[in-house]
């Protein structure tokens, strides 16, 4: 498990170390003011970590295969507690990874308020919940790692490109901006950036929370439904 946590952190850390420096040299616009680059980039990396919970199914599929999940389904516990238990496990390691990332970011010059960061972490947990639940839905449906891998690959890139994680969407042409508004994670990224900047009253903050709460609830509902129809 510790190895898994470390591997999960590698991608965002590499982005911080090997990609973020590029932004410094193209910065200076109103969208990317020179002093704000770390504050703008780190929230996106936190969202990436949450989205990476799409990989959760890779440890769930073997547990379906060994009949362990069926054993839990026959026990007198609700489908929701079963699911939330698994999600909690994922979110704990997600939180741990996020804290390590934040510590590294502080060393790289991050300046953000404690409240804003704490609220962002709640947002990230909601993303983690959504993605873990979705990953379980895919796992239960496909029942094999290859199917899950291709689904994850298909979802991952558009989610990332359409949420302005690498560069703010405000740089995009209008059609791309419109497309981004259909991506729930765009709201999460923008909300986290506003929170890091201490702009708690911006509309995007409550919009981000609303969208992610709805997404998490819907994903958990779908996962419970798949469990109910699952024949082992």
């Amino acid at each position, binding site marked *: 498990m510790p190895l898994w946590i470390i591997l999960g952190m590698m991608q965002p850390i590499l982005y911080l170390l090997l990609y973020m420096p590029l932004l410094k040299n193209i910065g200076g616009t109103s969208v990317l003011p020179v002093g704000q680059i770390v504050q703008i980039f780190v929230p996106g990396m936190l969202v990436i970590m949450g989205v990476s919970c799409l990989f959760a199914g890779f440890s769930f599929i073997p547990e379906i295969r060994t009949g362990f999940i069926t054993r*839990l389904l026959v026990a007198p516990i609700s489908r929701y507690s079963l699911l939330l238990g698994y999600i909690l496990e994922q979110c704990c390691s997600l939180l741990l990874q996020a804290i390590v990332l934040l510590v590294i970011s502080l060393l790289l010059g991050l300046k953000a308020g404690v409240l804003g960061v704490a609220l962002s972490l709640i947002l990230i947990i909601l993303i983690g919940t959504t993605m873990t639940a979705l990953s379980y839905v895919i796992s239960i449906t496909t029942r094999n790692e290859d199917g899950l891998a291709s689904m994850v690959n298909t979802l991952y890139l558009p989610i990332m490109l359409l949420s302005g994680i690498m560069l703010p969407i405000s740089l995009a042409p209008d059609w791309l901006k419109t497309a981004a508004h259909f991506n729930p994670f765009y709201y999460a990224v923008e909300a986290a950036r506003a929170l890091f900047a201490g702009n708690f009253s911006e509309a995007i903050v409550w919009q981000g929370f609303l969208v992610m709460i709805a997404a998490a609830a819907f994903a958990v509902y779908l996962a419970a439904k798949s469990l109910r129809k699952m024949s082992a």
Partner: protein
Amino acid sequence: MSAKDTPILITKNLQKTFFMKKGKDDVRAVKGVSLEVQKGQIFGFLGPNGAGKTTTLQMLTTVLAPTSGQATVVGFDLLKDPKKIRQHIGYVSQAGGADGMTDALQNLILQARLYGASKSEAEKRAKELIEQFEISEFATRKVISYSGGQRRRLDLALGVAHKPQLIFLDEPTTGLDPQSRAHFWDEIRKIRDDGVTIFLTTHYLDEADNLCDYLAIIDNGTVVAEGTPKHLKDQIGGESIVIGIENSKDLEKGKELLVKEKFVNKIYTNENKLYVYVKEGEKLLADVLRLMDNKKVSFQTIGLSKPSLDDVFLQKTGRSLREGGES
């Protein structure tokens, strides 16, 4: 002991259809199963692979919702009270269900905890089970390192950890060597003798015959026969003379020849074999040989066998479980 009269499990026309996407046929896995299982017996659900055994079991253990029909399990309605049923039943699936990455002790503790035991109660129960099922030798080793027999012992221990009234075992001895199998049968009998009712599925004829107190034979989603193994075999009427004839013309000729004889109760052909059911086969074997020889029907093997459950299956379905059931 008046409670003994009410069956612990009753199903009425239980059905399960898996609905497929457009363009594909829906799969009617269970087409209407009505059963009664009495308390304290080992109930066997015998049938070939794909007959609908596992699907039925998954419905009765509340994992899958039935498409239609009714069932009462341990006194509760399957559709209305699945939670109460779960409290009182155990289920060992074909895959087992132990967490391979941890040891038997942790698996057993978790199982007891899932059913509401406190931490200390769970630890105590786990130790009892480790003793009862002779697991102590490997109790603190990771489950993935276990042999088939060791693993099955743990699976069974997990199934009874919360002292269920009724335990479902899906193909419990598939893949076990003969010695482990015999040991496993003894364990199951012990559990029955402790007052637990056992519902097991199998495609092994000897398991159904030797271990089970009562049987339902399932094929293609429906129950084709039921009764005690002895009762089912007695229905066959006498012994069977099995004649192996490779040439299909000779096979037909042999059948036509023997079907006319008065001493023949029933006659079937299946996969190059002619099954002739007779009373007092020892005396008639010579007559059959003489008849075949006179009419120049050539054959390769001939044998006399006591009625088996395979004969029952053959009579009810026209196929042999022995040849068709393995995969």
